[in-house]
């Protein structure tokens, strides 16, 4: 069952098509990374999914409910906004208590303490107005998790955290895998690579790629090989003469080549090394990083 399913979802503003024919499926229990350059329509998608903005055309089904017909599904959704703003006069505990009150959480005191502990704000007693952006982000995560939602929608959850905080938040999100469905937008590609099962890449309001990270990497594999030998110049000359290359680059005592037939290349390189009396120090087939894929699809290469 898909937790999120959009059907031809469009959102137009006066002078801009923010979303165009978005067809997206997010299966239950996975972590879905929603990527795109700034202004691609990530936050607009989230606003439409949360009923904060109306779709111009099409619709979306969240947990089986049509967002155009009902707002009941929101009770089962936790949301962290990209710029978390709360009531500055509350402390974190008081704010969560208010959220528990309006969302009807059972045994709220225990749940609040557990959640504060989870996001590392258990000992924080000052008012939210004095919090740093990172602390607000942690509180944002706490209020999203508090009602134990089935679906978590996180808009840039790690954007303002320090490396340690980012690791903790990512570990936390990763620990939810299987129990909850997480839909999160980001442009930090290493975060996505680390925890996501599937990704969707958005460009100018259109979904241009959606698949599992594994499949995407397979699809965008470049057939690139990194070679390190004791005499780079000699090897470089020989390989240019012997193999049909699409690309060759000498970088940091290595040669990176791109070929059309990887099997043939892997058979030929050892022969070339032996024939020219060279010493092979390293031979590696390079996988494309998500960043490579992202840059390629968003730049339209």
């Amino acid at each position, binding site marked *: 069952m898909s937790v999120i399913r959009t059907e031809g979802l469009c959102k137009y503003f006066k002078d801009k098509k923010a979303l165009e024919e978005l067809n997206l499926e997010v299966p239950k229990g996975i972590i879905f990374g929603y990527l795109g350059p700034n202004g691609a329509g990530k936050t607009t998608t989230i*606003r439409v999914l*949360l*009923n*904060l*903005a*109306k779709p111009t055309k099409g619709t979306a089904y969240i947990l089986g409910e049509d967002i155009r017909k009902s*707002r*009941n*599904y*929101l*009770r089962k*959704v936790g*949301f962290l*906004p990209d*710029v978390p*703003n*709360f*009531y500055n*006069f*509350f402390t974190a505990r*008081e704010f969560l208590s*208010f*959220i528990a*009150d*309006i*969302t009807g959480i059972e045994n709220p005191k225990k749940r609040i303490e557990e959640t504060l502990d989870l996001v590392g704000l258990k000992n924080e007693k000052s008012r939210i107005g004095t919090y740093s952006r990172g602390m607000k982000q942690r509180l944002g995560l706490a*209020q999203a998790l508090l*009602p134990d939602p089935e679906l978590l929608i996180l808009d840039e959850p790690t954007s303002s955290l320090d490396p340690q905080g980012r690791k903790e938040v990512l570990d936390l999100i990763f620990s939810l895998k299987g129990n909850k469905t997480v839909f999160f937008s980001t442009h930090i590609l290493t975060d996505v690579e680390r925890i996501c099962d599937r990704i969707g890449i958005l460009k100018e309001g259109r979904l241009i790629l959606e698949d599992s990270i594994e499949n995407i990497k397979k699809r965008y594999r470049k057939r690139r090989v990194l070679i390190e030998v004791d005499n780079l110049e000699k090897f470089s000359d020989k390989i240019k003469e012997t193999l049909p290359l699409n690309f060759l680059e000498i970088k940091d005592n290595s040669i990176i080549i791109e070929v059309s037939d990887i099997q043939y290349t892997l058979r030929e390189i050892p022969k070339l090394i032996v024939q020219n009396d060279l010493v092979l120090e390293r031979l590696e087939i390079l996988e494309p990083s998500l960043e490579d894929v992202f840059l390629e699809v968003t730049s339209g290469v």
Partner: protein
Amino acid sequence: MVFKLMKKEFIEFRKTGKLIAIIVTFLLFSILSPITAKIMPEMIKSISSEITIIVPPPTWKDAFLQFFKNLNQIVFLIVVLLFIGSIAEEKNRRTAGLIVSKGIDRREWVLAKFLFQISLVFVLTIVSFFLCYYYSAILFPYTEFGTSLQSCLLFLFYMTFIISLTIFSSSVGNNIIQAGGIFIAIFIILGILNMFPSIKAYNPIYLSSLENQWIVSGVDWSSSIKTIISSVILSTLLVSVGVYLFNFQELE
């Protein structure tokens, strides 16, 4: 749910000092009004010893005229300043979006704000009225309870309209400046309409003049009923339209 949301409004007022500000304003003028009315003739006489100024002895009417003048000017201003951003600022700060994204009914969210503001102003007005009456009864030989109480009731109708207008303005505006602009524009239009005798009787802001008329000339429900009814209808309309618009608004 409405009660839970009203509780948050109360906590906000308490923690941000707004509650103290509004309580002090109401209570200060409820006590000061009869005292000012009592000492005003003496103050006027003391301006000059060379000119003889004849000032009639003050009565309870002067105390309540002073009371309603203060309520309609300074208290009115404080109420508008404190309430005008109640929805608009939450939209601007994105807290409105965060709360309604939790499945909270948008209509209940707006109604909770309206009901909290009405309750606060009603309670403070009634307490202030009794304080003013108490001091008036001490300072003057006679104070008419019935007339002053019924004039106070008119003020409550007037404040219901003013709060409905702030709710409407705040629902339409996306920040406190826009909301304030909408409020002032409507208030100015109503002020201009008040100059036309045929419209005046149906204009809610005419209620503020009626309070004084009742104190001076006595209670007259029959000639004020049109103003009260139109004020109630317009208040209901403003809140309903405010709720309706907010329900369909796009939020950040």
